[in-house]
């Protein structure tokens, strides 16, 4: 891990610790919990896309596997939440292995299609296997998580817990990137053939990172089930996979921090737009929620047109621009 990463982690940690003292409204904390879950999934997806260069349009399926493992095992079979989460992780990793072995031989759009097809199949099974998953009616009465005897049943508690998970996930991911495995992955991203010929076992590395990213999504799914206490197939469709991909791309997929930024911005954007429409309405303007869709699409388009390398890179370039302006201004003053 590099110096910069430690700094970033430190800042994030401080923000997380003090945020609930500033923001006391449960609504905002609840929104941030969902943001944390998206961040967690996106960290995994970023490892796969940004570092190993493999695309996935099926990550909602792993998210679903985690959520349904928790939902079915705890609500129907009475397991403890932690056991269920662990089982979900094992199932997801196993499924990722089974899907990854044949799929990761594919490239580009073909890989995209294979993962998308896998995601669609899982979604159909969630709907059709009524006896197991409850079908479209879903699983009811999923218990809250207990952490050393504390029931995580308030938004503040779950906020701390979910963001701690994100921090742990970040730490693990950053360590992975700067290890031998990470270097191997970057080599694969650069050129798979070259990496192969310099002794990187490309197919094993790709499958491993696919499994790791599946585990991230699975944990996020389990937390979702524990937090909302109810799941149905709705949040786990192919469009959610597309949304996750968009989050990673918007933030900038070449760094984990980009994935987190993208996930945060796109998770908060819809809530922000709805707050804005409340504001307009309170001013007596006739504003329809219908326009939110347009604004959301417009912002996404602008970001991709003008911040091609993602938000994080865009932020850096702004810092560069402002600092050069600052230096120029100082020079003028001196002379």
């Amino acid at each position: 891990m590099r110096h910069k990463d430690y700094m970033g982690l430190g800042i994030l940690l401080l923000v997380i610790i003090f945020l609930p003292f500033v923001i006391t409204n449960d609504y905002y904390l609840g929104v941030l919990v969902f943001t944390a879950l998206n961040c967690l999934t996106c960290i995994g997806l970023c490892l796969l896309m940004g570092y190993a260069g493999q695309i996935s349009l099926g990550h909602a399926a792993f998210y679903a596997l985690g959520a349904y493992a928790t939902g079915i095992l705890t609500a129907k079979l009475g397991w403890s939440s932690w056991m269920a989460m662990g089982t979900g992780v094992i199932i997801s990793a196993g499924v990722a292995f089974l899907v990854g072995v044949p799929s990761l031989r594919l490239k580009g759009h073909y890989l995209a299609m294979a993962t998308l097809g896998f995601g669609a199949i899982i979604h159909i099974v969630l709907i059709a296997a009524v006896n197991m998953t409850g079908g479209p009616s879903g699983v009811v009465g999923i218990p809250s998580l207990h952490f050393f005897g504390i029931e995580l049943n308030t938004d503040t508690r779950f906020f701390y817990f979910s963001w701690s998970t994100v921090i742990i996930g970040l730490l693990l991911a950053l360590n992975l990137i700067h290890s031998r495995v990470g270097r191997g992955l970057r080599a694969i991203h650069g050129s798979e053939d070259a990496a192969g010929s310099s002794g990187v076992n490309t197919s094993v590395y790709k499958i491993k990172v696919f499994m790791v990213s599946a585990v991230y999504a699975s944990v996020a799914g389990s937390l979702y089930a524990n937090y909302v206490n109810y799941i149905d197939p709705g949040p786990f469709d192919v469009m959610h996979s597309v949304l996750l991909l968009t989050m990673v791309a918007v933030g900038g997929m070449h760094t984990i921090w980009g994935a987190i930024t993208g996930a945060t911005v796109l998770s908060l954007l819809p809530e922000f737009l709805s707050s804005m429409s409340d504001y307009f309405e309170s001013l007596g303007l006739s504003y329809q929620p219908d326009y939110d869709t347009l604004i959301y699409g417009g912002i996404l388009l602008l970001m991709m047109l003008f911040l091609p390398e993602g938000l994080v890179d865009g932020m850096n370039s702004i810092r560069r621009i402002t600092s050069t302006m600052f230096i120029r201004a100082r020079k003028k003053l001196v002379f």
Partner: protein
Amino acid sequence: MMINLRRQKEVRAVKRVLWCGFVLMFVFFFSTATLYADSKAYHVGCIFAITGKASWLGEPQKNTVEMLAQKINESGGIDGKKLVLHIEDTQGDNTRAVNAVKKLIKKFNVCAILGPSRSGTSMAAIPVAQAANIPLISCASAEIMLQPIEERGWIFKLAQNDSDAVRKIYDHLVKRGLKKVGVITGTTGFGAAGRDFLIKMAPEYGMEIVADETYAPGDTDMTAQLVKIRNSGAQVIVNWSIVPAQSIIPQNMKQLKMEIPLYQSHGFANIKYAQAAGEAAEGLIFPAARIMAVDTLPKRHPQYALMAEYKSEYESTYKDNVSTFGGHAYDGIHLLSGALEKVGDDPAEIRNYIENARFVGTGGIFCFSPKDHCGLDKTAFELLTVKNGKFVVLEP
């Protein structure tokens, strides 16, 4: 070169604007200062699927509550207090629904919530409302929302029970002496709930389910499923779905020259579905709220006056056909304004009021009790049929 430089400048400018936007967004979003403190008014929350895949459900509901609130406020409000509606959009998405309910409760301090539109979003929103002790009056139909009743003290629903629709259909089948039923359902929450009841309640009525098929909302042709039903020797088909794809079933049956009777669910209660199916829809039978066939209802019926008024007002305001979904919202505002007038805006008082409320609505004659948070039974349904492209009461 010049062009390039200019372009770079443009890009920088837009980048700056975007970033300022994000900073503003965070500041604005988390500013807990409330702009809406108006203690001289009654604050009621509404969450509907106004955009997204179920927006055809949420749109009439939003229109209806806006129309009613305006009417109430124009005639002096409730006890001289204004009725302020905070309308949130779930986009038909569970996560957004959870956020929306929290927002209504924590940010706007509403005294009661009307909605959500869908069963799934309602199920996701229920734990939040239940924990916050705020009455939530759902416009969705799934009965599972109210079970177990001990843990759902704050949850009510206005839509008719799916099981009552099944009872209405099976009663009619018994009367006609038909026993072998082919079931075909859409793969949505509505379809799955119906399928569940159709299969579970069949023995009670001496019915035999000889075929059980499904179709996805995006399907364009269901002849394979219908051929299977035909080969199973079914005497009647029950098609249970709420998506437009259900109109294909009567057309495919006509194509296959299947003569057996077709029953639809109350999800068919949208005149566009009947029009889309054209001639093929003539004569099919379905249970629905009476609002769908007000014109053919005897004028002495207790619901007639109210429904005729709602229908003419809605249709003249929005130039759109009235629907049962909008009707749920109508009943909800009716119920809540009654509660606010009687007991004020204390959530617990409102809850107690609703538990004992009795009133005539568009969905039926409601009769709530502490044990029954729906207040409707199978008499809320009327069997309708399609005649010359219009819904009419089967046996007036």
